[in-house]
């Protein structure tokens, strides 16, 4: 039986080079050309040279990051589909975020890719080879995927070092130990190998989990809400460092998150799911600028949602009229207006200032408008001298508003 792990593990430490860096971050020189170029640092004596290793040949033959293809995948629980007819691709080295609200099927999809669940229809291929079809599947331990979890899922009975060594069983213990130590050093925890998980902070646990998932050099890394257990400050630092490592290693990553900030900052592409289906798949700015549905729009930005009715090719609303060529006459719609697309102090519409919140260079002004149940939120330059309670005129950049059917 051929075992992918055998190959990976036959080349301990190959591919990654560990570069001690000053400052807060931790960086790694990867085996791939682009990564090596990017991080070719001064401290070459500390850099592991894959050419010196007998496994280098094997590695270059097969150990680059793999592509992922998901085709018409369906998974039902007792007849109810959790994932339905989902298709998408991930190129080698690409970082894709699966986003959606809880229950949208994104975590189920991740487990299907990992092989932790069986699919009912469709197929999944890694590196161009089927790993899951309704007739059979490659068990998770043979897929060469790594996985990280929200609660890190470190083994509580093993030290940090032993946790990282867990997936390195195919190599001799001494090599596994050395490789695990290097992996810990890469995430800045070289001196914490002897600690048990409960002795580590949340951020440290996350880093051990990253080291553990990457140590066996997975072809694809799957991450299930990897930052949501961290407080805000730690989260941003850990996220940057984590994806610094991942980009340099060139690993293919599928990241599940319900946080649009995570998705926009780290992903090359975002796949938005809703009720088990993909509703939009594209780069971050596409989902932000041209969301396919009202839910996608809501997920990525903060909008003023104004109800309206289509009359003569325009959505007529209390905040103004908006061109809607593709809607039927009389159809109920929701017009989404960015707070920054409303200007106060000029224009033909009128309202009343109900509150002002100072935000620094700008301020958030809430303007009550007759016919709207919620005041409009407007981002205005600070110091406009608008008094709470006073009437105000405003105008909307109609071209940038989005119109969706009312739900």
């Amino acid at each position: 039986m051929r075992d992918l792990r055998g190959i990976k593990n036959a080349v301990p430490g190959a591919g990654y080079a560990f570069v001690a860096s000053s400052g807060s971050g931790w960086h790694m020189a990867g085996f791939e050309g682009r990564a090596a170029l990017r991080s070719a640092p001064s401290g070459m004596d500390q850099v592991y040279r894959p050419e010196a290793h007998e496994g280098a040949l094997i590695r270059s033959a097969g150990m680059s990051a793999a592509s992922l293809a998901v085709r018409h995948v369906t998974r039902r629980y007792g007849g109810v589909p959790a994932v339905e007819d989902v298709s998408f691709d991930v190129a080698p080295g690409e970082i894709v975020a699966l986003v959606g609200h809880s229950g949208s099927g994104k975590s189920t999809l991740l487990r299907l890719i990992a092989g932790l669940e069986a699919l009912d229809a469709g197929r999944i291929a890694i590196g161009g080879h089927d790993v899951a079809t309704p007739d059979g599947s490659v068990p998770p331990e043979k897929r060469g995927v790594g996985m990280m979890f929200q609660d890190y899922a470190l083994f509580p009975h093993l030290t940090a070092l032993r946790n990282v060594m867990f997936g390195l069983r195919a190599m001799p213990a001494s090599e596994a130990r050395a490789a695990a130590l290097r992996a810990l050093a890469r995430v800045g925890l070289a001196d914490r190998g002897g600690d048990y998980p409960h002795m580590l902070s949340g951020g440290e646990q996350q880093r051990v989990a990253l080291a553990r998932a990457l140590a066996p050099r997975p072809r694809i890394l799957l991450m299930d809400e990897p930052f949501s257990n961290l407080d805000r400050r730690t989260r941003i630092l850990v996220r940057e460092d984590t994806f610094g490592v991942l980009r340099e290693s060139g690993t293919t990553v599928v990241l599940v998150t319900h946080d649009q900030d995570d998705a926009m900052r780290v992903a090359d592409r975002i796949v938005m799911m809703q009720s088990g289906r993909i509703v939009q798949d594209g780069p971050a700015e596409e989902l932000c600028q041209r969301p396919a549905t009202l839910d996608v729009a809501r997920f990525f930005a903060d909008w003023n949602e104004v109800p309206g009715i289509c009359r003569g090719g325009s959505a007529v609303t209390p905040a103004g009229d908006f061109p809607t060529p593709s809607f039927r006459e009389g159809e109920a719609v929701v017009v989404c207006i960015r707070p920054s697309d409303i200007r106060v102090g000029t224009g033909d519409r009128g309202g009343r200032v109900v509150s002002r919140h100072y935000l620094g260079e700008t301020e958030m002004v809430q303007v009550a408008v007759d016919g709207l149940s919620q005041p409009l939120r407007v981002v205005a330059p600070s110091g406009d001298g608008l008094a709470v309670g006073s009437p105000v005129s405003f105008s909307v950049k109609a071209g940038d508003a989005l119109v969706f059917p009312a739900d």
Partner: protein
Amino acid sequence: MPAGALASDPPRLARQWCGGACLWLAASAATAVLVLVPIVSLAIIAAGGSGDAWTHLVANVLPAATLNTALLLLGVGALTIALGTGAAWLVTAYEFPGRRVLDWALLLPLAVPTYIVAYAYLDLLHPIGPVQSFIRTLFGIASPQDFRLPDVRSIPGAVILLGFVLYPYVYLSTRALFLIQAAGLVDAARTLGAGQGRIFFRVALPLARPAIAVGASLALMETLNDVGASEFLGVRTLTLSIYSTWINQSNLAGAAQLALVMLAVVMLLVVIERAARRGQRFGTTAQRTAAPARRRLAGWAGGAALALGLIPVLVGFAFPALHLIRQAAIRLDFAGFSPRLIGEAVNTIGVSTLATVIVIVLGVAAAYAARIEDGRIGRGLLRAASLGYALPGTVVALGLLAPLAGLDNLVDGLMSHGFGVSTGLLLSGTIAALAYAYAVRFLAISAGGVDAGLAKVPRRLDYSARTLGETVTGAFRRVHLPLIRPALGAAAILVFVDCMKELPATLLLRPLNFETLATHLYGEASRGTYEDGAIAALLIVLVGLLPVVLLARVSRPAVPQVSP
């Protein structure tokens, strides 16, 4: 695995969820079959029995046996519920000197098997025994003929003795419920102006109904299982009738038919228990860590509470245990520790250890398979494997006689035919048969314990292990096994002690001249001789204290955990 394999070689597609997972499911299925064998074989034997024997049984044995069993169950049920809930309420609702000790001391009677409490009290309450002699001396009565306590060898006597050793089942379950759930409601009731009596009868007792049902059904299953106490106390129960129909009359079909009647009684118990629990869930989710505010009893009231709480401990544990210690000391002084007794102790430990290993291995198989295949199949097999807890030992033993003999004959026939070697009896009447019976009886303990232990291991640890390259079995060995070790240890202790105490199945299945401590005691008590019996009984009680210590520790109110 060839080191030169390239990643570009496609990994093989395997059948869905097979490989290691299928092996575990197969092991679980085999375990369930092992447990179901005796039940199925009983049904077959009973169906094949002659009608005449059945008519005889219905006319002469069944009515009295059923009536006695019903009276015993009703009496023991009422007494264990009264003692168990009363004691649980006393130690959870009140604070008095000695309460903390009483809290665990009330569990002590669990260490005394029914046949030992009967054995001890027969001696204690004998007309010329210590109690009656003392009463006579107290009132200056000269002869046993002039004054006599009512004979303990009666249904009321059996009810009282069994009730006082079996109430801890009810005590354990209701006390846990009072601690976890009742506190807030009791406080609420108090602010609504309810007095103590009203709180107990209108709030605590209805609230405890599911817990009472669980505890009482366990106590009643023990009652049904008992063979020694009923025999010593002269109560002809169903269990005893099964035993004597087989042992004295060699009527296997008749005994099997009676065993089926017994199974019907067991099922009735289970149905009643389910009904009593209906609509109420055992609240393990909303755990309160704060202890309920106890009502302080000072002065004579505190003393009275302590005295009241001590009654079950004294009757169910202290008196019989002290009596056994005294008798054992006399015997040891007189004859020392006889080699025969040592041999029996070795037998007991040997067969119990063997059975414990089997039970733990099978329990692990069933519980882990249910974790892998957490659906109808895995869970269903786990439930089937746990059925034996409700089967009285006599029923299990009878159900095993025929299949084991059949297997022996088959193997013997094959061997004689093929190799000219007669293998004789391989399983019947051997330690293997005993261990099998114990496994059927006690598998629920280990399967349940392991299942509960596994439930505390987050599933993401399984996922992590799998994506880090471990197989289903490897994940168990490297992740689950180390994490459930405490649960395994606790289950092993409980199973081991239950095996050591087991009497009814041992009596029916043991090899010729093979005595355990329990059968030794039974033999002496049936013959009316009192030689090493007290020592054997004392040893069993001492070992029986192990799980009591364990339970006392486990059932302590949860201390708030400091999160890492």
